[in-house]
């Protein structure tokens, strides 16, 4: 009887602990939506021809729905805000537990960071990862000195003080979250032209760090070991500044490892991107219109140079993507309607 009572108490405790953890963890549904991106991957179909990894320059600039519509290529973006290269590596490692894409597209801007940067961005990228060796690796590689592994495994130890700041959002999304992305793409339909682009500040040293190269090597080796083509890209956003010295180093690396590197900044005009209409924040990120143009350009390259097949004739896949594109169109319409009506976007989840 005593044992039974202790068992019941233990189960009740575990339920209370996990419930408190769920309640106190940020939901990222009504603000800071990017924090929900990492977790969404696990609920999606895992049969992708292309996997994107990298920072905001992938999840805001490429549209998997457009890639499907135009080329019948299935894809997913495992991007995150200020995703550091070791996080990209471990997120790729994590994704490869579920699927093996034909091509991995990596945005190289993350090479500029050689050391852990900020706890807040670490959280946005890693909290959504399921517990695995990949997650542990990502945590250990990303932690700033004041962080602890335990608080990543049990986020309640990080977010416990949110009891003071709980909102209706925390209760509304306690049991289940909504989607904020379309296969990892974070949609924005507003427009803010890139009028004034600040000059990139001079740097003391333009060389990428050893740690960045270490993880680029790891990504390269991982893709090679799995028979995946790795495509290095630089998205066409005009700020943060992409220096010629950086470009040269990536080109040298790509040549050395027989990889392809496409700097879309140089080919933005060719892709038809107009920074007066195709960006929503003055050139930092593309809006949907810009993302679709860039995706069309990339899709052509993927289909022609990497031989990715058009899968629109596959009924099962087509059914899944039909629904995805419907959601995509619906949100686009909703956002455009809101822009007309309120002058701002209010719909970020579906």
């Amino acid at each position, binding site marked *: 009887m005593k044992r039974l009572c202790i068992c019941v108490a233990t189960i009740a*405790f575990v339920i209370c602990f996990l419930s408190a953890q769920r309640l106190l963890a940020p939901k990222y549904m009504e603000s800071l939506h990017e924090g929900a991106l990492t977790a969404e991957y696990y609920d999606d179909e895992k049969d992708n021809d292309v996997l994107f990894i990298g920072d905001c320059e992938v999840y805001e600039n490429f549209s998997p729905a457009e890639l499907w519509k135009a080329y019948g290529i299935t894809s997913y973006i495992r991007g995150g805000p200020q995703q550091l290269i070791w996080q990209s590596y471990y997120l790729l490692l994590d994704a490869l537990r579920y699927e093996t894409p034909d091509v991995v597209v990596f945005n190289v801007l993350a090479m500029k960071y050689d050391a852990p940067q900020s706890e807040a961005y670490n959280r946005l990228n890693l909290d959504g990862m399921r517990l695995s060796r990949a997650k542990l690796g990502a945590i250990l590689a990303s932690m700033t000195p004041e962080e602890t592994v335990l608080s990543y495994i049990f986020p309640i130890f990080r977010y416990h*003080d949110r009891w003071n700041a709980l909102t209706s959002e925390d209760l509304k999304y306690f049991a289940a979250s909504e989607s904020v992305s379309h296969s990892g793409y974070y949609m924005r339909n507003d427009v803010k032209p890139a009028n004034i682009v600040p000059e990139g500040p001079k740097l003391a040293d333009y060389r990428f760090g050893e740690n960045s190269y270490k993880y680029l090597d790891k990504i390269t080796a991982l893709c090679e070991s799995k028979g995946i083509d790795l495509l290095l890209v630089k998205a066409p956003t005009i700020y943060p500044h992409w220096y010629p010295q950086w470009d040269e180093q990536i080109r040298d690396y790509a040549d050395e490892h027989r990889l392809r590197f496409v700097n879309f900044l140089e080919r933005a005009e060719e892709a038809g991107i107009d920074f007066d209409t195709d960006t929503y924040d003055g050139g930092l990120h593309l809006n949907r219109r810009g993302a679709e143009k860039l995706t069309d350009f990339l899709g052509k390259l993927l289909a022609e140079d990497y031989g990715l097949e058009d899968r629109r004739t596959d009924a099962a896949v087509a059914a899944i993507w039909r629904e995805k594109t419907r959601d995509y169109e619906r949100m686009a319409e909703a956002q455009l309607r809101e822009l007309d009506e309120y002058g701002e976007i209010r719909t970020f989840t579906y």
Partner: protein
Amino acid sequence: MYFTSSAFVLFLVVVLTGYYVSPGRFRPVWLLFANSFFCVASGWAGTACVAATCLTTWYAGKRMDRLSKSLAARLADADLVSSEAKALRRRTKEQKRLWLLLGVCVNVGILAVTKYSGFFAQNLNAMARVLGLSFTASGFDFALTLGISFYTFKALSYMTDLYRGKKTEAAGSLVQVALFVSFFPELVQGPISRYCDLSPGLFAGRIPCRDEFCAGVQRILFGFFKKLVVADRLLPAVVILTKSPDEFKGAYVLLTMWFYAVVLFADFTGGIDIAVGVAKLFGIDVTENFNRPFYSKSIAEYWRRWHITMGAWFKDYLFYPLSASSAMLKLIKPSKRIFGKGVGVRIPVYIVTTVLWFTTGLWHGASWNFIVWGLTNGAIIIVSQELSPLYKRFHARFAFSETPVYGAFQIVRTFCLMSFIRVFDIYAGVGVTLGAYASVFADFGREGFAARSVLDLGLSVSDCVVVALGVCVMISAGLWTRRAAYKGTSLTARVCLCFLLFLATTVFGCYGIGYDAKQFIYNRF
């Protein structure tokens, strides 16, 4: 290594696992290894001090023990005549005293250099300035994280007990002395255990039973609750209140003293709970340091219930020896002549009491604040003793003094008085503290709560609610302890309590990023 850090939790898990899987005879050695790691993790300077204390204590103890044994062997010799035996005893005692003095000097010397040299230098410089001398002394600047005052007192008690030849058997080896002095749960802020009390559990290498283990975990969790939920939530408000005494005066000084009383109680008893609980997990019983001090009806009673091991130490190793010293005994006669029989007999006691409280104040911290605070305590106790006949007459005349209401009044009065003088700990100087006291009487109405909002103290309404609930939990726990209700508590209830404490501390505790890992207040004493 802070008790409240995740590193300490990890350390404890590893040490406990090692302790439980080791064969019984290796457990004390494993524990010594853990103590050493704890010291090193807290800094090399602190480790060097602990090591020096262990070595000197062990060596002085060994020499005294050898002298005692040699004396016993010689006394067993039937041929020894009485006068020879007496001379031998005297000579041995002198030799033992020499070793005791040597041990005490080295250990107190380490304490003086590391903790007090800065204070002495500061006062010397101030005196030199007054006298117009071009003289500048400088003290050593050690940032010691280990509680040097605590383990030094443990070492002194061990050597003194050996010298007296009472209660304590000499430790068999350096390992045993080191294990006693550097026992890591007591290293941060006590309790100040005696060798005779701690050593049996320490060297037995015993694994606690399930109930003991559960009680240990419960105690640790309650300690964390007090420290993280109550003390650390309220401490920032106390810091704000005391950093700007010109802004927060009048009624705010009263708020400061009550807040600080709660913070200090939750912080210190929380730390002791963790220490006692951790020791329990190793099957070791540590001397209790508190007996619900805020239920005391007088200052003297308060000091019998608050920091019991320190009070007992001062009583056994300072008050009684000093009271019985030839100097004090010689003083009785002239003081009787001057002050009369009644008061004259008590003069040596008052002198010793003053010395005791001066030392207690100095032990708490190298600053005049603590010395004045200690002397104030002593003065109140002396005045209370002097007025005790008056109290007795008053109580005999008025029957209400036996009622529970009057008892409650005495408790509240003692709490307020103790809280009032305790703020000497936290204001920047004696003058600032006295100014704050004065403002309670001078500016209470004008500069009271109207001047600044309570919310300027960095406490939200919800913080206040959490602290209030935390205080209620501590009061309930006090009542629970008094009724000894825990003795009949089932294991299931204990487990449930542990879960509740863990959840409450996890959610409402102040820790992690955004909070500074805070050392216990008594660690700096």
